[in-house]
């Protein structure tokens, strides 16, 4: 396979001015990240700062209804509230060891921005976060958290003023600031080596899950389900299974966000509803028109609201190792409420998509089997959104 490619997907479609910093990062991945010294320090940060390992929770109440055992990998319990910190701690530590003074990053809903800002504060690095102007307004609490960690938040007014435009602006800024700054990319997408770097940093999710499954189920799970926006939580969960011959029998299911589901609605499901194209440095599945212009995306979950997807997911879809399915806004909202009421856990709207697939398609799972859902983040951040959408939260208190 060509370097930086997963089958026909991946690559490094960037301005020449970004090739030197990407090469520098590539070398750092091979030398620094691979060193036992780095892995030791990162392991310490993940344990004692971020809160790893995260539990594998058995959902007894829902399992009784479903007829199979539902387990949740609890990335929602991590510091800053989602799996994002696995990646940002790794990249912040890497930046420091590369001698960089600053991190810059894009953010959509603000989860990656918050996780980057926290990691930068912990590692003593400067931090600039690019965020679509629309998202700055929609996600004000996360903007405040980033600022509290000392980050500068730059609102991006170009294009659709959302995540994809924030990525464009962050790439532009990195051109000018590459000498002392590392771009802490938020998902397993973008130009090589980001898809591989971020996947490796997130793979701890799947590694822990396999170990915990062995202890608790006495074997591997039968199915593993994760939501896919850019795809970092999913690739972190799937990769340790997909790269292990002994785990060939484990069904891997990625869930894309279908938006409202109305005919012709904007969605965030490029694997199911898009075509191959080039955006943000990579060749991958993409929502685009016939002329190659990138289409706006939509999902009730801001973290899944992206017109592209990491190249390794496009590859796994093509070779059939992972099955990618679509869940709509309303189904995710039902799952959000169900998990809160039946299991006492508020899932992020992103993770609710993965959970919703299991709840809405229970007939696709074998009775008595073990099904793991990656609960990639917690839903406290979504209370403002769901308050207006869930009937149970309407009316007098």
């Amino acid at each position, binding site marked *: 396979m060509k370097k930086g490619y997963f089958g026909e997907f991946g690559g490094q479609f960037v301005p020449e*001015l970004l090739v030197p910093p990407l090469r520098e990062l590539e070398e750092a991945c091979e030398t620094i990240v691979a060193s036992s010294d780095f892995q030791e320090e990162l392991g310490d940060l993940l344990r004692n700062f971020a809160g790893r390992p995260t539990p594998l929770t058995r959902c007894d109440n829902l399992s009784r209804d479903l007829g199979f055992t539902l387990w949740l990998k609890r990335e929602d319990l991590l510091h800053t509230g989602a799996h994002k910190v696995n990646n940002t701690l790794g990249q912040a530590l890497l930046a420091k060891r590369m001698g960089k003074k600053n991190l810059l990053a894009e953010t959509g809903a603000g989860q990656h921005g918050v996780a980057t800002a926290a990691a930068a504060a912990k590692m003593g690095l400067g931090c600039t976060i690019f965020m679509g102007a629309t998202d700055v307004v929609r996600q004000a609490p996360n903007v405040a958290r980033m600022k509290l960690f000392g980050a500068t938040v730059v609102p991006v007014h170009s294009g659709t003023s959302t995540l994809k435009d924030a990525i*464009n602006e962050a790439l532009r800024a990195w051109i*000018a600031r590459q000498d002392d700054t590392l771009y802490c990319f938020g998902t397993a997408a973008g130009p090589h080596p980001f898809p591989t770097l971020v996947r490796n940093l997130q793979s701890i999710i799947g590694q822990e899950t396999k170990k915990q499954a062995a202890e608790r189920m006495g074997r591997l799970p039968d199915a593993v389900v994760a939501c896919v926006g850019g795809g970092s939580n999913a690739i972190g969960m799937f990769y340790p299974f997909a790269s292990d011959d002994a785990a060939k029998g484990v069904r891997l299911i990625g869930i894309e966000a279908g938006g409202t589901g109305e005919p012709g609605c904007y969605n965030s499901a490029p694997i199911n509803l898009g075509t191959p194209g080039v955006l943000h440095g990579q060749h991958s599945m993409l929502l685009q028109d016939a002329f190659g212009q990138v289409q706006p995306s939509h999902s009730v979950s801001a973290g899944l609201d992206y017109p592209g997807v990491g190249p390794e997911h496009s590859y796994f879809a093509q070779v059939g190792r992972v099955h990618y399915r679509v869940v709509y806004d309303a189904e995710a909202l039902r799952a959000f409420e169900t998990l809160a009421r039946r299991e006492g856990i508020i899932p992020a709207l992103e993770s609710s998509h993965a959970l919703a697939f299991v709840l809405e398609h229970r007939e696709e799972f074998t009775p008595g089997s073990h099904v793991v859902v990656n609960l990639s983040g917690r839903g406290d951040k979504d209370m403002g959104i769901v308050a207006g959408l869930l009937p149970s939260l309407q009316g007098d208190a």
Partner: protein
Amino acid sequence: MGKSTLQQRVEQANKAGRIARIPFITAGFPTKAEFVGILRELDAHGADVIEVGVPFSDPVADGPVVEAASRVALEQGVTLPWILEQLAGLTPRLKAGVVLMGYYNPFLQHGLERLAADAAKAGVEGFIVPDLPLGEDAPMRAALRAHSIDLIPLVGLNTSEERMREYAATASGYVYVVSVMGTTGGTNSMNATVEDALERVSRVFSVPVALGFGIHSPQQLASLRVKPQAAVFGSALLRHLEAGGTVAEFMKPWVS
């Protein structure tokens, strides 16, 4: 490989004792109806080569001026087939050469072989694709070569001499030197770093050297110890036209 038409155009300008003039204009600017008129004016007022910007929704190498022009063009329904149609329909043809500058995805979706054939019919002599660096460029280069169309390489102030040599091995037309560590229309100090890069590029490449990004007047180039063979100006031209200026006024200092 013999000298391409584009290379000859630059060299002819140099023979006449001047730097070749390469204006950039976003397709469909300022409106679809006025665009061909602007092309004609640029042609009449001394352009040696005209770079026509193909609009894209996510132009990562562009600053605010070109990005805005790109967005306006898309809102008006400017597409790659429309652009090729406009160029193919120009009778008489322009005296200046035409180069299409745009991001990879619209070209890829058109189909690279079909693109090369359509571009050849439209009289396009070269392509500049800012997000298609060496290593990813082979399919497009091969498709274009079949129709003798150049794929112009872009190099920057941070491009190593070793990498320049890799680019030089396949370069035709001219080599485009990005004069800022930033986006189009960025502030340009024309400092020693630019001169060093120009020197390196001139040593490594056998094709002429064009300098672009942040160029707004010939005076900027006057102080340079090492001169490029061509200058590209885009954002400054778009700004000038947006402010109500004419092509003739803008081109005047470059022509006199």
